[in-house]
């Protein structure tokens, strides 16, 4: 009961903030909506017993990546008159068609799978103990060591790339 209530509230917030991200004209407000959206998603993760993931979501996404976005938006806004920030629309019709197609596809899959429940989904949704950091850590450093190292390489490359790109040329 309570879980449903929390879920529907969060879902409404997520969708609402998502829509705002896409529709708001002022980029700074967009970034704010994005942060709110990410925080709600983090709470969804808590609902899914993935506390560690939720914290990572807040720490890395909301506290790190989006700050970067905010920074860039602010730096860019600085040098422009306010009216130049306004943002027209493009590809609107095509976008909506694409989204409609996407949603149709997803709902078709949902209807189909609801009619033919597969063995995978049938596992009882009781509260499992997979949320804690220990389990994830074990998996990360044993089964998924190679992807993990690759991810760290990716981050390193991205860091170097970002520095090279952002550096002013003398």
């Amino acid at each position, binding site marked *: *009961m309570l*879980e449903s*209530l929390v*879920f*529907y509230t969060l*879902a409404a917030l997520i*969708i609402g903030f*998502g829509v705002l991200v*896409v529709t708001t004209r002022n*980029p700074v407000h*967009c970034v704010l909506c994005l942060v709110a*959206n990410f925080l709600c*998603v983090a709470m*969804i*993760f808590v609902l*899914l017993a*993935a506390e560690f*993931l939720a914290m*990572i979501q807040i720490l*890395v*996404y909301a506290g*790190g*990546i989006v700050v970067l*976005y905010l920074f*860039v*938006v602010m730096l*860019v806004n600085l040098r422009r008159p306010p009216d130049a920030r306004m*943002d*027209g*629309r*493009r*590809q609107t019709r095509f*976008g909506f068609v*694409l*989204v409609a197609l*996407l*949603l149709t596809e*997803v709902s078709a899959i*949902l209807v189909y799978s*609801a009619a033919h429940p597969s063995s995978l*989904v049938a*596992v009882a*949704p009781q509260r*499992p103990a*997979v*949320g804690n950091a220990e389990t*994830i850590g074990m*998996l*990360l450093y044993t*089964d998924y060591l190679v992807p*993990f190292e690759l*991810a760290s390489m*990716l*981050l390193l490359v*991205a860091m170097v*790339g*970002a*520095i090279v*790109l*952002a550096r002013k040329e003398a």
Partner: protein
Amino acid sequence: MTPITPYHYLVLSAALFAIGVLGVMVRRNIIIILMSIELMLNAVNINLAAFSYQLHNAAGQVFAIFVVAVAAAEAAVGLGIILAFYRNKETLNIDDMNIMRW
């Protein structure tokens, strides 16, 4: 109210993903397009977490963490490119970004 099933999460995730797609298609400001991509990545994360919960398997969360790492890398490089571009062209309009080099 019906109990919350994975379907609920999947619908939520699909909706969020759709919003992200819409943002990429509709907006002109490249920063907001990047932000819409972040929205889509989050939709994916919701899916991963939901299945991980459903299947009692933490692997889903591990992959969600990889997604976060990729998103961080993407943001760093993407924003770096945007800044470099902006310094040269004084615009963020994606329609103006139509040449491979300058």
